[in-house]
């Protein structure tokens, strides 16, 4: 079980959180203008990185807030967490 450092509450067990998938996927600004291919990309294509992955988590059984996290998917080591809206930090 991961010990996840919520940027608002500090380290808490993974069971308090909900995983939210790949981070930094911006909702299209003008959805009506999107082609089917662009919709497919937005909705379904994922980087599925083997290495450092930027991902969303929600502290659903805590402060209930979303935040982002960098984690190495080859070791599950957590590198850092940061607030939604902040740019992705350099991998440490």
């Amino acid at each position, binding site marked *: *079980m*991961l010990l996840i450092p919520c940027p608002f509450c500090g380290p808490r067990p*993974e*069971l308090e*959180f*909900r*995983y939210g*998938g790949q981070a930094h996927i911006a909702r299209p600004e003008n959805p009506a203008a999107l082609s*089917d*291919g662009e*919709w*497919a*990309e937005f*909705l*379904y*294509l*994922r*980087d*599925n*990185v*083997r290495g450092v*992955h930027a*991902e969303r988590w929600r502290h659903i059984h805590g402060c209930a807030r979303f935040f982002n996290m960098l*984690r190495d*998917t*080859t*070791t*599950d080591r957590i590198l850092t967490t940061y607030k939604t809206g902040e740019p992705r930090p350099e991998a440490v």
Partner: protein
Amino acid sequence: MERFSGLSLLRHAMGGHQGWKPFWREPEPKPAYDAVIVGGGGHGMGAAYYLAKQHGMRNIAVLEKGWLGGGNTGRNTTIIRSNYLFPESAALYNHAVKLWETLSEELNYNTMFSQRGVLMLAHTVHDVQVFKRHVHANRAAGVDNEWLSAAECKAFCPPLNISANIRYPVMGGALQRRGGTARHDAVVWGYARAADSLGVDIIQNCAVTGIRRDASGAVEGVETERGFIRTRKVGVSAAGNTSVVMAMAGLRMPLESFPLQALVSEPVKPDFPCVVMSNTIHAYISQSDKGEMVIGAGTDAYTSYTQRGALHMTSHTLDAICELVPMYRRLRMLRNWGGIVDTTPDRSPIIAKTPVPGLYVNCGWGTGGFKATPGSAHLFAHTIAKDEPHPINAPFSLERFTTGRFIDEAAAAAVAH
């Protein structure tokens, strides 16, 4: 290839089992092949076999980064069934079950396919309604599946606890009698031995590290740990690592890779006669021929390539097993492990051509592709050889994520084993 039979076994026994030969060669990779399969699991090895056997493509190779069957093929709980909801899926998985029924004879290798029945338990009114709908849909599609009352479940599988005082009492179940299990290693070894005898080069410890494309964008060959190999056709069958391999050709996939775990108990005498699955309380269990109870857990919440998962996933499953079969509370668990499963948004697989000419992909089997091994391999070989899908796998395209023609087993089944 030496033909195996009761007589050949006896002959080897008389010789003190000294005369066994390796099942396949260990060739050096050639500089060029007519086709290359990436990934030596059951699906990739099987595709190579059908390419050689049915499509006459014998100058081909399977490249495996580790050892044959060391991926999900050798890590799964071997449940085989075909009672999926949608006609496309029922046709796909039933194609596989039909091939399973004759696979040992076809390969002259005992895959230990055992049609002991797969019983899926219902614990809520919703389960009951959904399962009955499945039963009717399956029967209309010519796929066997039948409804059992709780008492009939108990008669079919005596160790089950069907009393009313457990947290989620058994309200009945759907039984597919033609479902069952097979020996996972034997499947890939059987395909490997037969493919090798048809001239297929099996190259282990040889990871593909790049896919080279020519000026027109078509596949030219693969970079590997053992040098460049020229080929016009590459079939990727790399399960959890598919996104990584496809990225080498510049493609992003509708896939996410999650850890999935399984565990086995100490071996005991034959006790558990069938396969039992419960999606609602998340437990599934069968007994291997060695006597171990084989138990599958759920996927972890997050994507990972670690081939291990969290302890709370396995303990959650064991809670459910101990309620369903209380006497197993005294069993000791011997080993647990994880595999990395590649899941699609609709939880149906992809067996298809790609936008890159000469590049084919078989992936997205997620938590439930062992059951499909012969069918998937057979259809993937067809797709590679003919450069177009077989009618059975035509709906399982990459384009469905653009057109929206999903085969939404995710909504229909939730858990797919």
